[in-house]
């Protein structure tokens, strides 16, 4: 835990310090919204490989990490980019080519697993997935789970409700807690101590951050000392849950950051074609990520188009209909 009062460091320092080869990570956001993309790109830049990723419904961040060969195992509920890619494209290819191992859960189960991690309990129960292949089919077989002590000993366990009176035999599914080595989220605002404020939907980011051994928050804006205390009801993470704060305007680009900017439709339509061909994807990584820093990436990928995706202060997104 970093209890320092100034946690602001550079992106390369934050990733270099906390994300190491073989480590278990989770990233925040949901499909095409608030993925910590600048941090994802820095992981790719630093060539950190063999990562184990946990996600509920991550889209773009998950897909680029997989396409760049950083991920060996993924425990997920969903890999899609909404209308832009009903199934994430690199994810699809790498699954079929057996380049990654996938363990499938449901969205609620992944959310509960992060929550269990955040609460400090070993599992949480749910009724979800009784009678399905989510229980029956395991991506990580029992042998692998025995050997790799960082994995849960079992995918999920069905047990009878030990409190049942009226319905003996009632069953629940226990899903194992997740405590990632590091969670990275992108927020609209944080201050130097790590107090963090997300605007709009928070998805699972709060539990993901609380469950992790280390948490990196990248943010659009660093608030002045004391500023966030003027409306504490809007802050989700206390300083002691955050180890590093990185100031990164457009740090979620090309995904959306509510109230700041929208997802970039042009980028996503272009990415669809790039991601479908590994050699094109490799050139994209080389040209757009390996040879740039974050601000150069934004300039190269979006350029003057950035004004098109800036959010309308009233709606929080870039209005399509007003532009016509």
């Amino acid at each position, binding site marked *: 835990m970093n209890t320092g009062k100034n946690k602001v460091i550079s992106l390369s320092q934050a990733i270099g310090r906390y994300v190491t080869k073989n480590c278990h990570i989770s990233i925040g956001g*949901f*499909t*095409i*919204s*608030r993925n910590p993309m600048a941090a994802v790109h820095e992981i790719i830049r630093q060539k950190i490989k063999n990562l184990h990723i946990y996600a*509920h*419904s991550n*889209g773009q961040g998950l897909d680029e990490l997989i396409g760049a060969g950083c991920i060996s195992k993924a425990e*997920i*509920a*969903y*890999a*899609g*980019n*909404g*209308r*832009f890619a*009903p*199934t994430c494209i690199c*994810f*699809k290819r790498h*699954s*079929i080519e*057996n380049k990654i191992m996938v363990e*499938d*859960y*449901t*969205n*609620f*189960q992944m*959310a509960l697993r992060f*929550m269990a991690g955040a609460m400090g309990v070993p599992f949480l129960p*749910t*009724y*979800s*997935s*009784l*009678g*399905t*292949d*989510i229980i029956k*089919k395991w*991506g990580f077989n029992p042998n692998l789970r025995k050997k790799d002590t960082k994995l849960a000993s079992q995918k999920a366990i069905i047990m009878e409700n030990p409190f049942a009176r009226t319905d003996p035999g009632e*069953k629940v599914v226990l899903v194992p807690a997740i405590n990632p080595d590091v969670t990275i989220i992108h927020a609209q605002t944080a201050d130097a101590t790590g107090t963090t404020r997300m605007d*709009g*939907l*928070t*998805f*699972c980011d*709060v*539990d993901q951050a609380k469950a992790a051994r280390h948490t990196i928050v990248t943010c659009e804006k660093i608030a002045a000392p004391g500023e966030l205390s003027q409306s504490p009801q809007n802050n989700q993470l206390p300083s002691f849950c955050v180890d590093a704060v990185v100031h990164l305007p457009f740090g979620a680009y090309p995904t*959306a950051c*509510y109230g700041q900017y929208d997802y970039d439709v042009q980028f996503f339509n272009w990415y669809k074609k790039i991601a479908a061909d590994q050699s094109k994807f490799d050139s994209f990584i080389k040209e757009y990520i390996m040879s740039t820093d974050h601000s150069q990436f934004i300039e190269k990928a979006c350029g003057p188009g950035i004004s098109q995706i800036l*959010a309308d202060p009233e*709606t*929080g*997104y870039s*209005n*399509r*209909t007003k532009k016509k």
Partner: protein
Amino acid sequence: MNYSPREIMVLAAARQIKNKDIVLCGTGLSMLAAVAAKHIYAPESTIFFESGAIDSGLAELPLAVADSRVMYKAANFCSLVETFSFMQNKKTGTNIVGIIGAAQIDPYGNLNSTMIGSYDHTKVRFAGSGGACDLSCFVGSNIIFMEVTKQKFVKKLSYLTSPGWIQDDTSRDQSKIAAKGPSIVVTDMGIMGFDKKSKKMFLKEYYPGINPEDIQKKVGFDIDISRAVPLSEPKNGELKILREKTDPEKLILD
């Protein structure tokens, strides 16, 4: 007024929604159905998204459930744990109507959104359950929403992601799933129900101009078409609202 298969499909699903319903939908056609229901048949229904937005303003059509467009003028923001807890909690869950799609469906309404092949040798990969399995295990009523093709309507699934009636009228009980199985399947050619006893899919209604035998030809298993009745054409007023209010930019309907 002329209409497309997608338009009649959206209206057919929308007609299932009642005023008391809390409608959980994805993006695309299922969201149009929820929005159309609110404008035409059930103004007091509530739309919510698994990403956490409740009663969204939907001034513009979202392109993903986590799109900022679901956040504008929403009544509440919830975490993922909260939204799925509303489904699992019987008090709220029984009033929730889910509209879900999938890559494949079998005769009992079980859905595959995960993969084709064997689980360790994947031939085709889809996005995964997302919230579909959770929804199928929890909520009071479930409308399955998909286009009829031989690739989608199959005898046996490679992977059962979301439980339908599993394999007969007792199997949900045996698996200890408290909520009911799916009620109907709304497609681009007609509406299927599930037989009370066998829980097998049968053709309930077909759209104007559609021959029930053509539906059988496109479904990869035997489906009882003997009970099917024709549905009437959508009214001009319904089509007008659908086009003008739910997708004025024609992002999905065209």
